[in-house]
């Protein structure tokens, strides 16, 4: 207490570059640590054998060929949204509107499917649905981009608010389409004639979704890493002034990139309505517009690394549902486990980026 300048017990400094090997060691360590913490929490709170809980999770995620297929479909949808958001984030445009853009794509798909189903031949119908979805998603994302580019509005709030507009719009149309009146749900559209449905491979069309997203993943990787557009996005993201100085038209890049971002979100909405759900609800996107942000950041905007980040999250989600069935634990319990695991994974990035210094000896003066 005698010393007026006291070194704090802990202080934090930013690291320079950490060797990749070490960084990954920390990440893997974090995952293992999180599993151990989950195991301890499980034993203490439920008295169940944590190994059997993990066993149930794995069984729930990949226990049968159908489960693997469902896992891959869920992975594809989450990945597609993450990929859609990535170029915007890389440009430091905070697109929080993935949820709404997916929903608008789904909405446009539904409109075409409802009113042109049976009018157009199926192949044409599906293509019209696709165009409508991609266009609507793109427009939905372009609106905040345009305002940002022209008048410098805050895109974080704008894109976020656009989600609620989309949800309300869909909620309104659900009342128009609901069957029976007053039940608040649309039900499967064109169930009898399957107009506008992607064709089945086996008993569903999930493989289409998986293949489409695989193509988009590779495409996005090439676009961001090797194309001129991708380079412009990085430059704008680093510094808009630099971009201006080297002659990049920043507003054009912003609008163009958001059109792409929204188009892929719209595409996701199309895949979900035409290839999987065949119906629309306000919760169709199911929070994936936000989960996708986490995937994108966890993978540090690397399209290929995103596959694994998305897989981790989908695996936890799919597996977690099984816990409630076979272990008699409430769904909230799996949320707790997922929360712990994500906490560790995101938390470890802190230790990769910063060094924590512990005060060595009391009373030592700071220069």
């Amino acid at each position, binding site marked *: 207490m005698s010393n007026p300048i006291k070194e704090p017990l802990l202080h934090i400094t930013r690291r320079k570059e950490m060797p*990749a090997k070490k960084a990954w060691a920390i990440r893997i360590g974090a995952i293992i640590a999180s*599993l151990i913490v989950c195991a301890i929490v499980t034993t203490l709170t439920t008295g169940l054998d944590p190994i059997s809980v*993990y*066993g149930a999770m794995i069984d729930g995620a990949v226990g049968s060929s159908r489960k693997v297929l469902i896992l891959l479909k869920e992975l594809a949808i989450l990945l597609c949204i993450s990929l859609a958001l990535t170029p915007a984030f890389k440009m430091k445009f905070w697109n929080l509107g993935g949820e709404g853009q997916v929903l608008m794509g789904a909405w446009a798909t539904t409109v075409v499917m409802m009113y042109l189903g049976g009018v157009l031949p199926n192949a044409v119908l599906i293509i019209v649905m696709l165009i409508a979805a991609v266009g609507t998603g793109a427009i939905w994302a372009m609106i905040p981009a345009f305002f940002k580019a022209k008048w410098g509005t805050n895109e974080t709030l704008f894109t976020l608010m656009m989600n609620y507009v989309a949800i309300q719009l869909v909620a309104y149309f659900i009342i128009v389409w609901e069957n029976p009146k007053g039940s608040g*749900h649309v039900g499967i559209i064109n169930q009898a004639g399957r107009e506008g449905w992607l064709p089945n491979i086996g008993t569903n069309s999930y493989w289409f979704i998986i293949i489409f997203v695989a193509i988009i993943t590779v495409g996005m990787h090439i676009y961001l890493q090797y194309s001129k557009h991708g380079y412009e996005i990085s430059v704008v993201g680093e510094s808009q002034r630099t971009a201006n100085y080297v002659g990049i038209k920043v507003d054009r890049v912003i609008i163009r990139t958001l059109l792409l971002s929204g188009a892929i979100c719209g595409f996701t909405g199309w895949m979900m309505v035409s290839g999987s759900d065949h119906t629309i609800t306000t919760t169709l996107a199911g929070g994936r517009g936000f989960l996708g942000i986490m995937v994108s950041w966890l993978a540090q905007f690397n399209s290929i690394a995103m596959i694994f980040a998305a897989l981790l999250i989908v695996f936890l989600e799919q597996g977690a549902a099984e816990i409630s069935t*076979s272990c008699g634990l*409430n769904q909230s319990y799996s949320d707790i486990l997922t929360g712990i695991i994500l906490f560790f994974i995101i938390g470890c990035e802190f230790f990769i980026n910063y060094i924590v210094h512990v005060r060595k000896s009391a009373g030592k003066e700071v220069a």
Partner: protein
Amino acid sequence: MKKAVALMLTLMMVFAFTVLFTGCGGGDDEGNSDSALKAGFICLHDENSTYDKNFIDAANAACEEMGIEAVIKTNVPEGQECYDTAAELADEGCGIIFADSFGHEDFMIQAAKDFPDVQFCHSTGTKAHTEGLDNYHNAFASIYEGRYLAGVAAGMKLNEMIEKGDITADQAKIGYVGAYTYAEVISGYTSFFLGARSECPSATMDVTFTGSWYDEAAEKEAANKLIGRDCVLISQHADSMGAPTACEKAGVPDVSYNGSTVDACPNTFIVSSRIDWVPYYKYAMQAVLDGEAIDTDWTGNLETESVQLTEVNEQAAAEGTQAKIDEVKAALESGDIHVFDTSTFTVEGKTLDAYDADVDTDADFTPDTNVISDGYFHESEFRSAPYFDLRIDGITTLDEQY
């Protein structure tokens, strides 16, 4: 990229280690299953929802009694997840699969088409009789009779309040928290109201809708809104504890649904009606065991013990409630009275002698079947799910929002 692969490999190793051990499933169930049949159950929410708890309890009870293994899936949304879950249950060898929520229906039909050897039974649905599938069935119960009885208890409570001088006869206004605005809910609140009015002729009712089957905050808010509009007794057709707990806090008597809420609301809970699904589950599973066909539409009633009333909570109910309920129940069973007796209600001031309801669900809600004859509305006779969607006089719907 390489590092990502390394990460995944490590992850997989950790999981592979754990997968050597068996999961929780099986172990405790296999012990008491002496039957080749396995039954799957798909629930919209979990046991926190009074509605789903009622189903889950029935599933466990029926399966235990029959020695059948039950696989219960909770929190299955009314979307493609329902189809996926049904398909997974079929893969796991379930010979019969039940689902509990209205919005599951289309996805169950889809699964029924893809798995013709598995029986699919959907509670509360409306389409089995028009789909024409051998392995897809609807079930419901004449819960309007149960609600009518619960309404009788409510009417007696209103009378007690009038006698005590707490309220005047014109202030006998009931509040009702409904989920949606289609027939299932309309049939429920109307039968409840008619039961109450049979005891307390001056009763009126306000109905508000939450637009969700399970939204605790909205249901609580709705109950408080009704209490604020001078409703002196509350009932609900939504599945959380929102309305009952709001009533307990405000000290307003509540007629509950899906089961007793007396533990949480000892001072205000009067009685609750519920559907007991055990009789249906046992019937349907026995039919599969015997290789017999399951009814396309199955409607349980008081006689099958599918429609149940919980014990009356003496602390909150008016004196003599149980005796009166028993009396009215006997009259309903014998056919002496009918819930939707057309002489007891009017629509826009008129007594109805004929009404075409939309029994065969179609996109345009075309009325197709006359359901009023012999002086009463024949509910749940042309299909199991309710189709009573008349807006009778005396009930005010506040908002058909959502």
